[in-house]
């Protein structure tokens, strides 16, 4: 630490060059921050999945319905705690292009299965007891400005109700939050009964079941027991853990993580070259100065340390500002993307990895110039000038 002043002075020896290097490192880590936040938001469903929750869907495809009568049968499987049902509604509010998720559910069981959803008790009671009421997530309220007691028309692309209309009316009974900041609340929940009695076709079916179990360690076994039960029926099922379900859905998009990693590799490789080149130049120009340091009694390792420290410092300088800007940008962006891409933020893990990457990049960029500085013989270096 006592050489910090020396290191600090030498990186500013050529101001323009250092500023340019710092700026390009800044851009690299800004990109790193943004891309890893996006990557993580895409993975959101996988990371926050609850290990004691299973998802049961039709074996052929998620879009095929499963009989509502399965609920009791799944409930009876040993190890199963609770079973909630859900269905895709495919609706929007006023703007056809802004679709969000609405699920018809059994209010009591659904809240039992998703304990992370927080709803005040009075609102809960109101929802449970009002047939055509719905609860909406905070993210939706932020977008549409709804209030408790509002009646809202939701247009379903799929479901015609018995009056022949695709517009369904709901009264907002409550507004819920989630206790996980990565989770989305861009969701609307209403009574399955109201939905099933009201729809013109496909009555008596549900889209999928969410099952909670006693022991996450037995997840595979219980999932298997559920599926075996329906193996000889026309509606076979496929049960997986919530994480596996989310992961398999994510994989449908193709390998996003790989693309992100490729881009970051290209960026880092380039930045390393720029920074490495700068350090090499800086050492080349200062050979005589470094020789003087050695003459004054600095040991080889010390000189090497100073050069390495310079390189790391430049990386940290640019990197921390870059990560900071990414963080600021993400805070601003997150509000706008909450409905489409929830959980857009820099995780602690990404931050720590980022700082480690800065140090590592500093070492890689500085190691050859530093070795050169260490091996320098005083006589030769001084004779050059």
């Amino acid at each position, binding site marked *: 630490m006592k050489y910090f002043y020396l290191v600090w002075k030498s990186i500013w020896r050529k101001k*323009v*060059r250092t500023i340019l290097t710092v700026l390009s490192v800044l851009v690299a880590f800004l990109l790193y921050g943004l891309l890893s936040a996006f990557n993580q938001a895409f993975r959101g469903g996988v990371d926050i999945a609850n290990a004691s929750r299973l998802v049961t869907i039709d074996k052929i495809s998620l879009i095929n319905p499963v009989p509502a009568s399965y609920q009791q049968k799944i409930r009876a499987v040993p190890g199963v705690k609770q079973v909630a049902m859900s269905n895709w509604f495919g609706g929007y509010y006023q703007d056809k292009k802004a679709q969000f998720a609405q699920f018809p559910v059994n209010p009591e069981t659904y809240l039992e299965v998703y304990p992370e959803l927080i709803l005040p008790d009075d609102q809960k009671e109101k929802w449970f007891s009002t047939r055509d009421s719905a609860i909406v997530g905070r993210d939706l309220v932020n977008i549409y400005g709804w209030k408790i007691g509002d009646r809202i028309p939701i247009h379903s692309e799929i479901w015609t109700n018995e009056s022949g209309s*695709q517009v369904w009316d709901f009264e907002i009974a409550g507004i819920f939050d989630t206790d996980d900041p990565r989770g989305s609340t861009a969701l609307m929940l209403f009574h399955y009964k109201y939905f099933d009695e009201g729809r013109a076709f496909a009555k008596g079916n549900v889209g999928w079941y969410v099952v909670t179990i006693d022991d996450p360690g037995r997840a595979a076994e219980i999932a298997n027991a559920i599926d075996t039960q329906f193996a000889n029926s026309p509606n076979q099922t496929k049960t997986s853990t919530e994480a596996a379900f989310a992961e398999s859905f994510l994989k*449908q998009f*193709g390998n996003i993580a790989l693309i992100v990693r490729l881009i970051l590799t290209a960026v880092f490789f380039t930045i390393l070259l720029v920074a490495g080149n700068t350090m090499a130049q800086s050492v080349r120009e200062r050979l005589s100065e470094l020789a003087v340091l050695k003459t004054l009694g600095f040991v080889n390792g010390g000189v090497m340390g100073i050069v390495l420290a310079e390189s790391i410092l430049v990386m940290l300088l640019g990197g921390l500002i870059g990560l900071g800007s990414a963080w600021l940008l993400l805070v601003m962006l997150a509000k706008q993307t909450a409905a489409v891409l929830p959980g857009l933020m820099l995780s602690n893990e990404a931050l720590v990895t980022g700082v480690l990457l800065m140090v590592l990049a500093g070492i890689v960029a500085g190691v050859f110039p530093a070795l050169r500085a260490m091996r320098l013989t005083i006589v030769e270096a001084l004779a050059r000038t």
Partner: protein
Amino acid sequence: MMTQLKQIISVTAMNLRSLPQRLAASVVAVIGVGAVVGVFAGVLSMASGFEKTMLSAGSEGTAIVIRAGSSSELSSGIGNNQVQVIAEAPGVVKNEQGAILSAELFVLVDIAKKSNNQDGNVPLRGVQAGAFQVRDNIAIVEGRMFDTGKNEMVVGRAAQQTFSGLDVGSVIPFGLTEWTVVGIFENDGSVSESELWTDVRVLQSIYRRGNSFQSVRVKLESPEAIEAFTDFLKEDPRIDPDVYSEKAFYSQQSETLATFIRVVGYPLTVLMAIGAIFGALNTMYSSVSARGKEIATLRALGFGPLSILTSTIIESGALAVLGGILGGGLAWLFLNGYTVSTLNGASFSQVVFDFAVSPDLLVQGLIAAVIIGLVGGLFPAIRAVRIPVSAALREL
């Protein structure tokens, strides 16, 4: 004027010839620009490849009818009586058997991708005999057509290559029913090739859809005929349709994903380009300072500031263009034609497409490279001209 030009040419030639002496820094600049152009072409080639696949399916001469308010075939529903109304509409090509149309059912089945063994939402389409007439350039290229009334299917070439177990002769179980693949069809690499086709009657009974469909495609007498066709259907009380030309329909289906890739791709490129400009500036500043004495000597000999300025910018531009060619070339070499499949949110189904590093993208990439080179060269060039000759000559 002529002397100016000669000066510029000779100083530029000298700069370029002395590049090997500044090899490391020059290579850094070239690679920096190369990375930008490579990433740019790579990311956006996904958007252009996806659009190419989606749009090549769309004919102006074919209309598609879905239920009003549905944004995709999946959420639509059309009854058999409504299909009759559509068959009678004006503007539809007719032959001895009646209107040329195909009423279709669109469902999804989970089939594992070969690449990662994970299930994908593969579209399974029930079609009528007219399906091959309402689409252009479509043909069975291997095996045969499915027989009506049987659990047989023909699969698109792209689907067969991407998902497992879809070769001719394969048997696939969906629930308690088993299906045999009897043929492969091709359709100019369009989105249809990502689909599996079977007899719509068979699919209706297995999916318990009664006599209902999800979309109807008709062959129009001409692209202009769509207006009269649409007006007729809109006025008929028996049906509440949305009518699109097939081309408009697919362009709407591809919009969200293609826009998303672009919204990510362009800012990404701009950011990376800014980083590369800093790299180029660094390189050119050090090039100018390494040649400080040389430049001062030239100026002392009477070479004008314009020639020094221009030659420095050209040097930087040349490095950037080289980088651009390198990056674009590598992207083209490794990514063009690379086949991937993704979930198209608009249809909730898998679309198989090839990355398309189009000439358009390469030109845009080169333009970006030139901009990086010019900006990266300009400020160092100005400095080169500004340093007083006497001071520069005294420098080390």
